[in-house]
C-alpha cells in the first residue's frame, strides 16, 4: 500500500465523507458503533491536518491534482500556509464539539444519532474541502455542501429553530447563487476556473465591465454567507435557536470560512491593487465592518437571552475581521486573519458554556445566571476566560488581534477606525461583564429572584466530563493562542501576505 505522502490533504476531505455515508449502514448493524466511528473520523481528520501543516511549514505549499489532470484543465487542491492554519482550526473545533455533542444531542434527539452525526460529518467534509480547493467552481460545490448541512443541523432544535433555518435557507441560497453568478461572469471572459490561472489572466482585463460586475457579485454573495452588516438578518435567529452544540460549531466555522474565501478572492485571485484602486471595495468593506462592530455590540447589550446576545456579538466580531481585511495593509491583514482564529476559539467556547448551562439547568436568560459560579464553577471559569479574550485583555489571544488591528489603522492614518475599535471594545466589555457580574457577584437584595433558583440552594452540579473537557480545552487554547501568537503570525500569516500589502 503506497499512498503518496502528498495524498494526505485529500484524505482530510474524503474520510469524513465516506464515514458520513457509512454511518446509516452501521446503524442498521450496530447502533452503539456510530459515535466511536464518528470520533475516529474526526480524530483522523485532525491528525491529518496536523501532518499537512507540518509538511507545509517545512516544504512550502502542497499541490494535488485530482485525477492526474494538471490545472487549468483539472481540479487542483492547494494547501498553502493560510489553508493549513484553517485546516488545523477546523479539525480542532470539529473534534472538540463532536466530543461535547454526544450528551447534549442525546438529550434533545433520542434515537437519532446516526442521521445527526452523518450530517455533521458531511458539514466537516464541506468545510475542509472549502479551504483546500483551488478551483472556483469546486469551492461553490463545497460551500453548498456546508450550507445545506448547516441548514439541516440548525433545524434539529425544533419549534422556532425550523423557522430560523428556513430563513437561513432562503438568504443563504441567494448568497450562493450570487457567488455562482460571479464565477460564471469570470469564466465567460477568461475561460478558466483555477484560482492561480485566473490570477494570471485577469490583470489584463481589470477595466472590463464583466470582471467588475463579476467581482461585485462574488463579494456580495460571500458577504451574505459571512453575515456582514447589513446582510446579517439570518444570523441571530439561527445561532440562538439551534441546539447548543450546533450553535458552537456553526458560529465557530461557517462564517469564518466564508471570510477566508473572501480574503482569497480579494487578495489572491484578484490582485490587491484591484480591490484598493480600481474599485474602492476595501474602503466600503472597512466602513461596513466598522458599522457592524458598533451596531452589533449595541444590539448585544440590549439582549436578555444569553445565546441571542452571543449571536449579536458574533455580528460585531465579523465586523472586526472585515475591518482588518479592508484596511489593506500588512498589520490589518494579520489582525483580521488572527481574529478569525481567535474568534473561532472564543465564540466556540462561549456557545459551549451556554449549552452546558442549558443542559444542566435549562436557564436561557442572563438574569437567571445568579450563583452560577458556585453551582458550576468550571463552566463559569471558562466563560470568564473567553469573555476576557473577547474584550481583549492580555495574555489572551483577543488582545493581540485587536492590537494588530489598531496598529494597522494607525499605519493607514484611519483614526476614525481606531476610535471605532476602542468604542466597540468598551461596548463588548459592557455586555460580557454584565454576565460575569450575575455569575459571580450576587445581586442586590431588592431584586426579584427568578423561579427555579431557591435561595440557599447552592448545590454544586457540574456538567459531565465529556462536555466539560472540550470547554476547558478551548479555554486553555484561547490563552495559548495569545501566548504563541508570535509563532502563528510568523509561521503561517507572514509568508502569505500579498506583496502590495506588505508595504
Amino acid at each position: 500500500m503506497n499512498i503518496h505522502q502528498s495524498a494526505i490533504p485529500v484524505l482530510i476531505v474524503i474520510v469524513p465523507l465516506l464515514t458520513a455515508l457509512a454511518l446509516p449502514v452501521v446503524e442498521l448493524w450496530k447502533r452503539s458503533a456510530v459515535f466511536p466511528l464518528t470520533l475516529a473520523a474526526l480524530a483522523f481528520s485532525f491528525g491529518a491536518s496536523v501532518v499537512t501543516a507540518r509538511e507545509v511549514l517545512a516544504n512550502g505549499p502542497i499541490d494535488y491534482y485530482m485525477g492526474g489532470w494538471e490545472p487549468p484543465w483539472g481540479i487542483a487542491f492547494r494547501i498553502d500556509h493560510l489553508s493549513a492554519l484553517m485546516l488545523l482550526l477546523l479539525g480542532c473545533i470539529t473534534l472538540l464539539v463532536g466530543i461535547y455533542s454526544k450528551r447534549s444531542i442525546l438529550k434533545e434527539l433520542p434515537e437519532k444519532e446516526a442521521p445527526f452525526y452523518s450530517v455533521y460529518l458531511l458539514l466537516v467534509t464541506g468545510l475542509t474541502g472549502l479551504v483546500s480547493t483551488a478551483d472556483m467552481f469546486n469551492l461553490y460545490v463545497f460551500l453548498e455542501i456546508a450550507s445545506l448541512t448547516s441548514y439541516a443541523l440548525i433545524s434539529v432544535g425544533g419549534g422556532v429553530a425550523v423557522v430560523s433555518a428556513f430563513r437561513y435557507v432562503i438568504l443563504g441560497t441567494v448568497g450562493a447563487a450570487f457567488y455562482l453568478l460571479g464565477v460564471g461572469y469570470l469564466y465567460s471572459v477568461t475561460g478558466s476556473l483555477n484560482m492561480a490561472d485566473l490570477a494570471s489572466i485577469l490583470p489584463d482585463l481589470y477595466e472590463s465591465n464583466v470582471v467588475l460586475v463579476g467581482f461585485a457579485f462574488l463579494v456580495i454573495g460571500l458577504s451574505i454567507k459571512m453575515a456582514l452588516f447589513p446582510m446579517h438578518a439570518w444570523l441571530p435567529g439561527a445561532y440562538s435557536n439551534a441546539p447548543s452544540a450546533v450553535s458552537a460549531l456553526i458560529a465557530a466555522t461557517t462564517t469564518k470560512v466564508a471570510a477566508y474565501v473572501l480574503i482569497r478572492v480579494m487578495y489572491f485571485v484578484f490582485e490587491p491593487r484591484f480591490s484598493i484602486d480600481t474599485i474602492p471595495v476595501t474602503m466600503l468593506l472597512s466602513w461596513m465592518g466598522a458599522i457592524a462592530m458598533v451596531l452589533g455590540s449595541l444590539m448585544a447589550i440590549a439582549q436578555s437571552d444569553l445565546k441571542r446576545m452571543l449571536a449579536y456579538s458574533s455580528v460585531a466580531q465579523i465586523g472586526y475581521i472585515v475591518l482588518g481585511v479592508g484596511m489593506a495593509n500588512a498589520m490589518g491583514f494579520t489582525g483580521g486573519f488572527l481574529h478569525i482564529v481567535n474568534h473561532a476559539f472564543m465564540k466556540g467556547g462561549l456557545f459551549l458554556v451556554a449549552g452546558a448551562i442549558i443542559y444542566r439547568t435549562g436557564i436561557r436568560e442572563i438574569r437567571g445566571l445568579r450563583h452560577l459560579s458556585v453551582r458550576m464553577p468550571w463552566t463559569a471559569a471558562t466563560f470568564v476566560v473567553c469573555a476576557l479574550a473577547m474584550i481583549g485583555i492580555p495574555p489572551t489571544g483577543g488582545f493581540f488581534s485587536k492590537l494588530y488591528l489598531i496598529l494597522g489603522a494607525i499605519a493607514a492614518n484611519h483614526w476614525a477606525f481606531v476610535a471605532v475599535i476602542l468604542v466597540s471594545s468598551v461596548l463588548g466589555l459592557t455586555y460580557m461583564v454584565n454576565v460575569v457580574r450575575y455569575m459571580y457577584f450576587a445581586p442586590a437584595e431588592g431584586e426579584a429572584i427568578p423561579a427555579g433558583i431557591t435561595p440557599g440552594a447552592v448545590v454544586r452540579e457540574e456538567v459531565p466530563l465529556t462536555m466539560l473537557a472540550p470547554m476547558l480545552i478551548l479555554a486553555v487554547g484561547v490563552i495559548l493562542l495569545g501566548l504563541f501568537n508570535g509563532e502563528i503570525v510568523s509561521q503561517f500569516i507572514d509568508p502569505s501576505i500579498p506583496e502590495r500589502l506588505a508595504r
Partner: protein
Amino acid sequence: MNAAHESLVIRTICRLVAVFTQLFGLYVIMHGHSSPGGGFQGGVILASSFILLAVSDGIGEVQRRFSLKALTILTSAGVFLYAGIGVVCLLLGANFLDYGILPLPEPRSLGMLGIEIGVGVTVMAATVSIFRDLMLFE
C-alpha cells in the same frame, strides 16, 4: 396519494410506462460518456419511474418494493462505489480518481462508467427517499 388510484386504466398504463422508463434510465446512465446523459440524469429518470408508481398505485406499493433499509443501503453503496474507485486509484499509487492506472482494458472508459453507475444509484435512492419522506409525513 397514499391510496391506490381507482381507475384500472391508469394503473395498468403507469405500470407499463414505468418499465420502459427504467429501461431508458439505465440506457442514459450507461451511455453517459458518448451521448447526452450520465449518472445524475439517469438516476433521476429511474427515480421518476418509482414516483410514477407511487402516484398511480399508492405509496404503500412503493414501500413494499423499496423498503427504507434498501434505500439507505443503496444511497451509501453508490457513494462507496464512487469514492471506492477513487481510493483504489489512490492505493495503486496515482492521484485520487486517476483512472489511467487501473489494471483493466480501457481503464479510463471503464472507470468513468463505474463512477456514473455509482452516481446514478445514489441519486435514484436519494430522490426516492426524499419523495417518500414528503409523502409519508403526518
